[in-house]
């Protein structure tokens, strides 16, 4: 009797690891089947990513003003300027901000400044007296196309505005040269002459005011 009890206990002790092994084997088989499915479907076994929303929200826009203009552009100067600033620290690690600004300066004539009788036709001749070539708009920088080239440290709105104005000054200094004004004027003469000739005038005289 005692031997039978001992055998039963011994059998249970021997079988227990077998159950455990069988359970683990079953888990391995299930995991292997899942893994095979994953491999077959091209998915990874475990994959974790943190998504960041890079798109802006949908917001309304407002048309602040609509203006009727009459400006004839004869020369456009597309410019890009790298402007940077450094804030010195006492013990190294200076703050730096570098941005690339893009803008297009447009030279031409403003027809709203034409005086009375600026266009006089007589027979097959026509005479045009137009205002001098000028920069057509002071807001020529497209800040939406700024490239934030380098930034370290914290920079205020005033610092960024100062960079914007400096970029505008540099662009004007580089682009509004006497050569470019002369080139715009020459092109204006050529284009206005061609326009008048297409209306049938043989002799065209273009004069520029101040």
């Amino acid at each position: 009797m005692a031997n039978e009890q001992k055998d039963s206990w011994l059998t249970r002790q021997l079988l227990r690891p077998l159950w455990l092994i069988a359970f683990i084997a079953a888990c391995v088989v299930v995991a292997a089947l899942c893994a095979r499915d994953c491999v077959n479907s091209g998915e990874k076994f475990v994959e974790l990513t943190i998504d960041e929303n890079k798109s802006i929200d949908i917001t309304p826009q407002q048309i602040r003003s609509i203006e009727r203009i009459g400006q004839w552009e004869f020369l456009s100067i597309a410019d890009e300027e790298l402007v940077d600033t450094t804030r010195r620290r006492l013990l190294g690690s200076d703050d730096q901000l570098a941005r690339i600004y893009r803008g297009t300066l447009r030279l031409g004539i403003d027809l709203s400044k034409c005086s009375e009788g600026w266009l006089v036709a007589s027979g097959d001749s026509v005479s045009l007296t137009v205002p001098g070539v000028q920069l057509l708009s002071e807001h020529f920088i497209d800040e939406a196309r700024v490239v934030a080239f380098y930034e370290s440290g914290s920079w205020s709105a005033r610092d960024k505005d100062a960079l914007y104005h400096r970029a505008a000054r540099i662009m004007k200094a580089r682009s509004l040269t006497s050569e470019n004004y002369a080139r715009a004027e020459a092109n204006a003469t050529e284009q206005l002459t061609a326009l008048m000739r297409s209306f049938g005038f043989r002799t065209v005289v273009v004069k520029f005011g101040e």
Partner: protein
Amino acid sequence: MNRTSLLWLSMTILAAMPTACTMHDDAETPSSMLAETPIIPDSAALVMRVRETSRLYTAEYHVHKIVTHRDVRRLRGSLLGHQFEAPLTLGDRKIAIPIDVTLRAYVDFSTFSEANIERSADGQTLHIILPDPKVVVTGSRVDHARTRQYADFLRSSYSDEEIASFTQQGVKSVLRTIPEIGIIETARQNAAATLIPMAASLGYDESQIVVTFRKANYSRRDLGTILERRSRD
């Protein structure tokens, strides 16, 4: 104080100094308070392209928009082929960027020729056929002073690069509305209002001058033809 103590004291001070400086760097210090140290400006011109044109600008629109962005991080993944997704509640941040965009519409006269003008047999009626107007962004401006951003303590502030990217997206969203805001129609009317008095000065009767454009109506599908392509967009 012996030599070893002096050595330890010196090393401690040297180790503490850069830490103090780094903290000062990250603080939200107004630039005016930092003005005691000199600001060294520098600039370099990258590219300049000069082009001869003949464009009659006839309409200018000033568009204002507040570009907003909410940066909520989401944990996304898969486990044994099962997809899951959950928002990460920590580390939210938001920004609002006011921008002003200047749009101008123009008629390109660079290809204008006699082929664009038709006269009646008696020479009294003048018909001017103009190319379709185009629209260009002549300028855009970010209102840095009114830009507001909020970031949880676990998140960094928006970088200059991110703000530039959102601004660019904002302008692109303004451009997508061009067919609906009426700038093309305004440009056509204003072009006619500019050219008819000119033609009248050349001896034609104003009532006998007709200005037409090739296309009557515009929709979103025409956006590619209306909009002047901006370089490097």
